[in-house]
């Protein structure tokens, strides 16, 4: 918690220092051309912002001085005060005090600010009394003694005026640097290249040098890589906090009463991933309010609180982040989806009865599938859910649903915490190396030919009680459709290596030639004319300099399903 306060303080300091610099700049502009009203407007705005920020952070002193300055610029703006050289002296003085107060936040020390504050207040009071008074310093001092100013304040003024010359005009620099994301992306790409190059050098030097020669290089470059990745991580509350308003608006439109609870907001995730999924989260949250939570009357009948609760929770699991969107509403009406799927032609009657509830629920992510009878303002158009899945596919994330009728629904989004590095399993196929992302890999099994059964034109096997449909990856790449024939050509004693992958609840086994090791890779995209391959999401460069293709599991499974190629019960 204190960590977060520290962070807020840093952000405040950065902004406050910017404000301070800007105030000084605008004052010099104004001084050169006092009749120009634009800088006054800007000064009013900045001092107002500074006051607001300082109040929010509890820095009363800064807020007080900023407040007086704000009033003063307001008066100048309304031409209640005509600005002159004397006022400038006071205003500059006040600006310096603001600067010192901001520094004092970082290095606590005593800054005398009451004198300047009082002086400005007096200026303002004078202006109230007489709309066009020109005041000089002596008049101010007189008026202070005449009015209600206390002794201590007078002392303070005297003191400050005595050391006016010694005002500290050190330049100061914020401890925070704002960097465009583009630069971070660049940096990450360069680190990626470095890691690839490192692996290549280590591989080529194998045997000639002892491995310890490279251990320092390995360690430093790994540290560098993780540091760069760390820079890109942002806490999810940055995004989560925006949802209070979205929930409120959606609930108002639907005439429902909903509160949003946030959990695990300190969980960190790559900024780009957060950006990619932000729209999906909006969809899911709106759906939770629109479809999930019932109207207050219905909730009362069901014995629940009239107010529904939507919980947004983030948690880290090794190198993934799980975001759960939970509502305590009606739950998903599975029989209704089944019926709907048959009506819309997504399933035939037989399939509808065979498919498990979990599979049926995944249908809501199909394009054009909406279960709401009426289209409301915020939900029910049947777009959205398939957009959610596309967004997740693009970053290698997955989603699954848990729903209990009457008790609510939870969507679990599993996201990689960083886009830079993918954990993959390397395997060999026709003497070439491929990588398969571990996020989709469920298990790796080794079986014999006799364990594989030909069903219709496809192959299946049973492993740990689960039926897995198998495909020869080589056949898929060559667009060879006769898997049964490929199987017959194998020697009965051959061990068959199978990588079992899952995606959105669908399970499939890929038969590969040889399994190699696990490896963290940095994926690069393919460019024209080699782009647009649905089986491949990108490439990486191996230690030996060769290119290794990275399989796109969602792409492959989509092609298989749409082709009805080898389709057995999934």
């Amino acid at each position, binding site marked *: 918690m204190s960590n977060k306060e520290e962070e807020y303080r840093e952000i405040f300091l950065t902004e406050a220092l910017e404000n301070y610099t800007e105030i000084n700049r605008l004052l010099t502009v104004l001084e050169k051309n006092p009749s120009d009203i634009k800088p006054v407007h800007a000064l009013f705005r900045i001092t107002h912002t500074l006051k607001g920020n300082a109040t929010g952070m509890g820095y009363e002193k800064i807020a007080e001085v900023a407040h007086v300055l704000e009033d003063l610029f307001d008066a100048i703006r309304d031409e209640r005060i005509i600005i002159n050289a004397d006022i400038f002296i006071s205003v500059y003085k006040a600006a310096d005090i603001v600067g010192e107060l901001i520094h004092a936040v970082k290095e606590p020390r005593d800054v005398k600010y009451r004198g300047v504050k009082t002086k400005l207040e007096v200026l303002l009071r004078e202006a109230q009394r007489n709309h066009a008074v020109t005041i000089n310093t002596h008049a101010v001092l007189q008026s202070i003694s005449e009015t209600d100013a206390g002794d201590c304040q007078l002392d303070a003024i005297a003191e400050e005026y005595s050391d006016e010359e010694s005002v500290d005009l050190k330049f100061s620099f914020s401890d925070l640097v704002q960097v465009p994301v583009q630069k971070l992306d660049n940096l990450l790409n360069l680190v990626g290249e470095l890691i690839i190059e490192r692996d290549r050098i280590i591989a080529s030097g194998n045997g000639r040098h002892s491995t310890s020669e490279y251990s320092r290089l390995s360690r430093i470059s790994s540290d560098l890589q993780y540091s760069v990745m760390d820079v890109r991580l942002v806490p999810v509350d940055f995004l989560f906090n925006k949802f209070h308003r979205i929930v409120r608006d959606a609930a108002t439109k639907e005439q429902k009463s909903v509160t949003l609870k946030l959990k695990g907001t300190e969980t960190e995730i790559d900024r780009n991933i957060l950006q990619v999924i932000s729209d999906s989260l909006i969809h899911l949250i709106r759906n939770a309010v629109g479809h999930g939570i019932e109207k207050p009357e219905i909730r009362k009948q069901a014995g629940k609180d009239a107010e529904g609760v939507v919980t947004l929770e983030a948690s880290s699991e090794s190198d993934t982040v799980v975001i759960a969107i939970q509502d305590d509403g009606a739950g998903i009406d599975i029989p209704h989806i089944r019926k709907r799927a048959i009506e819309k032609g997504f399933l035939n009657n037989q399939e509808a009865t065979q498919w498990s509830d979990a599979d049926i629920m995944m249908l809501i992510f199909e394009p054009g599938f909406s279960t709401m009878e009426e289209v409301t303002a915020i939900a029910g158009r049947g777009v959205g859910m398939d957009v959610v899945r596309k967004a997740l596919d693009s970053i290698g994330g997955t989603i699954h649903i848990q729903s209990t009728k009457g008790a609510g629904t939870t969507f679990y989004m599993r996201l990689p915490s960083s886009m830079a590095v993918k954990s993959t399993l390397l395997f060999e196929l026709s003497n070439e190396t491929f990588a398969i992302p571990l996020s989709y890999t469920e298990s790796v099994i080794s079986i014999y030919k006799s364990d594989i059964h030909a069903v219709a034109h496809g192959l299946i096997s049973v492993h740990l009680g689960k039926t897995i449909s198998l495909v020869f990856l080589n056949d898929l790449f060559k667009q060879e459709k006769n898997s049964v024939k490929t199987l017959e050509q194998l020697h009965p004693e051959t061990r068959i290596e199978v990588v079992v992958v899952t995606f959105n609840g669908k399970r499939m086994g890929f038969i590969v030639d040889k399994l190699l090791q696990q490896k963290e890779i940095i994926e690069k995209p393919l460019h*024209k*004319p080699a782009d647009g391959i649905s089986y491949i999401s990108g490439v990486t460069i191996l230690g030996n300099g060769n290119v290794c293709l990275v399989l796109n599991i969602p792409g492959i499974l989509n*092609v298989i399903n749409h082709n009805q190629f080898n389709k057995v019960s999934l």
Partner: protein
Amino acid sequence: MSTKAQEENNQTSGYARTFQIVVFRLGDEEYGISIDQIKEVVITPTITRVPQKPAFIKGVANIRGNIIAILDLEQKFGLQKAEDTMPSNNNFTLVIDSNEYKMGVLVKEVPNTLSISSSAIEDFIFTGDGNAEQSYIKGIVKLDKRLIIMIDILKVLSQQEEQQIFKKQAVAI
């Protein structure tokens, strides 16, 4: 060199520009690409085959950290002979300089560069095969007894390749 060609130049145009082309052999013919379209010539690196692409795209390769697609124009132009299919014959790769396309072209021998006058290029004449898309052929260069077919490498892909991919996908679905 060829005085004939020069004479011809002087006759046809007094202001002919000279420019450089990279000449390489495909099948039994000589082909030329403007040197502006070539970034470098490298020894062909290991090629990784890719699925779902027409056969003339041999795969992708790593050239100093850049991933490029490797094209076999002999196959593309239908010039391939059975004994030429050995990849070891394709010793060099012309890396194409383009922001849009990241690719290289396989060639057997070290290509040489040639300075030619723009007037030495003759407009391409229709070969009689109505089905073939030939807009990538920019013209014919005649030097002595040599005949060089000038191609625009970027146009080779922009039309036919896309069509072929669509066809392949249609078949697959």
